[in-house]
């Protein structure tokens, strides 16, 4: 059987939120000698992208998007030990994500974290109302390539600027890319505060992360 004969039904099962079926095609694909990296890049990631497109087209809804992303994340986690040493899921980069200090909005940020994670990023979710010093400390410790900052209030979006300035003063800004998002945030705001990217929703956030990171 050709690789597509395993990958296509795998993709289909991701769209249909059928974890057992996804796993069945993954294990059969592995048994048939398909490279685990190919399963991730040409199966799981493609399936999740299709789910994202269907979500954008209003063909599937939030609970379905979350479920598909959770399935992909779990399956990907189980595949990791099978990757060869030179292959590395971290190839897309480590991403710190959090909602800025003073802002307790969680759902949109968690969705972005889930989708980034399911798209091959090593995501560390710092949670909500994260103090700026925590973000800077974690940036020094984990050396992420990407930081994603969420703010849902016009009062707390100022904190996104504060985080970026603090990262600069701490000397870690130049080694990483910064994405900002949240309902009051705009492309213009992102430019004004010196962020590298902005996305208006979770599906677009993955594409924007890939763009600023220069990865597929």
């Amino acid at each position, binding site marked *: 059987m050709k690789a597509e004969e395993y990958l296509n039904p795998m993709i289909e099962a991701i769209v249909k939120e059928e974890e057992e079926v996804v796993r069945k095609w993954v294990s059969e694909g592995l048994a048939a000698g398909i490279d685990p990296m190919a399963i991730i890049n040409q199966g799981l990631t493609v399936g999740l992208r299709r789910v994202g497109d269907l979500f954008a087209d209003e063909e599937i809804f939030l*609970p379905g998007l979350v479920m598909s992303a959770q399935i992909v994340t779990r399956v990907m986690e189980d595949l990791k030990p099978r990757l060869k040493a030179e292959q590395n899921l971290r190839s897309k980069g480590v991403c710190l994500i959090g909602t800025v200090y003073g802002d307790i909005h969680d759902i949109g940020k968690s969705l972005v974290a889930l989708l980034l994670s399911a798209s091959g990023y090593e995501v560390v979710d710092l949670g909500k109302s994260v103090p700026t010093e925590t973000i800077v400390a974690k940036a020094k410790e984990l050396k992420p390539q990407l930081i994603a900052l969420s703010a849902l209030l016009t009062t707390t979006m100022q904190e996104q600027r504060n985080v970026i300035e603090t990262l600069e003063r701490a000397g870690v800004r130049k080694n990483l890319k910064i994405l900002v998002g949240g309902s009051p945030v705009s492309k*213009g705001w992102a430019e004004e505060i010196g962020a590298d990217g902005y996305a208006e929703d979770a599906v677009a956030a993955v594409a924007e992360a890939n763009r600023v990171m220069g990865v597929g």
Partner: protein
Amino acid sequence: MELKVKVLSDREIAMIDQASRALLMEVGVDVPHREALEIFKRAGAMVDFSRQRVRVPEHVINEALAKCASCVRLYDRAGGPPLLIGGDRVYFGTVGIATNVLDYEKDTYRQVVCDDLRDIIRLSDVLNPPDFILIPATPTDVPSKIVDLIETKLLLLNTKKHFIAEAQNGKHCRKTIAMAAEVAGNLEALQAKPFFSMLVCLTSPLVLRDDAAELIIETAKAGLPLFIESGPMCGGTSPATLASTLVMANAELLNSFVLAKTVNPSVPLVYASWARILDMKSATVSHGGPEFPLLRIGTTQMAKYYGLPSGGGGILADTKSIDVQLGMEKLGTGLLPALAETNMVVGMGLLADENAISLEALLIDHEVAGWIRRAMRGIEVTDGTTDLSVFKQVGPGADFVGTQHTRENFRREMFIPKIMDRGYLALHKDPKAKAMRNRAKEFYRKMMEQYKSPELPRDIETKLDKIIEE
């Protein structure tokens, strides 16, 4: 608990009923039709043949009402379950007889042609609601002498949904029945599962026109359902109180029911009304104000008092464009009658009081009707919907988005709009790009991909044309 509304107390219903009965005796109704007068006479009414006026005593009304079914079954040609018109069920339908169309592409008004009627029937066929199709427009590119029959032909060729047809007179009524019987295979098949009803519009004040009388007589003879509407205009064709408008609308309907039930005790009848107001600024009828749904709730309550299936206008608008006024009028005039459980709410697709039809308006009305349907269901409180297990699973501080509980419940609990714009404000994009009208256009294309013409024998059109030409 479900949302329900009423405007009349039991005492007020009784007052209107009593006044209607007295009105039919003390003033009576003009019936300029010989056969109808004889039928009224036979029923026990006092008939003045020279003045062509009938006065129906109480016991005759009671006899007619006693013959009425509390639920009328309206079938379609797709073999689906019938619409059960009665009780607390609410169905939405198109309406029209409009001669203008708001052009979908150009956003300008022009006269309706057959292709417009075909398009609106086809869109009505794929959308749900409308649950049934009351003839939505009157084409101007065919001779007016046969336009009603052409309308019926277009309905038969383009939809399998239940439809309500119009006919100009008794002869055309017979032809309409013959055309439907042709499609059904024979008259008996049509009578067993009637997939169309006949529309009858009464004339206010207190006139049963000859053509309306003929429609009632011919349709009753065939035993097919009658959708009978009274539509007085408060301050114009009825006195300037809403209560007396109800008295008269009710009296006109009861009077017509006597005629129908005397011809055939088993004819299915729907008690429908467009009782409304005459707008004192423009000297024209208005359907978009608060009086319209108040009157609709009133006529619906009267129908329920008699145990009759109810219908009438709703989801209507006076506005001439797809604008803020449209949204306000459509929701107000749709929601209130639906909450009163008017069984057949007709108005989808219509605007510019009754003068224009629009594909966009029909798509918006589909959304309005969906919104109303969800509101009608209220909040379901059961052991299941208040169960604590999902709280325990998620715990404090987290969210419920990814839970199985959400996946299982959100579609039933939440109205998922098709064309209402929701979501973030993307300042770097055109904020109007997702405006309802634009989304309606996209939705139209998507819906029409699903349309399939009814399968019919090849020569059916020739046969229908032959009936029209005879």
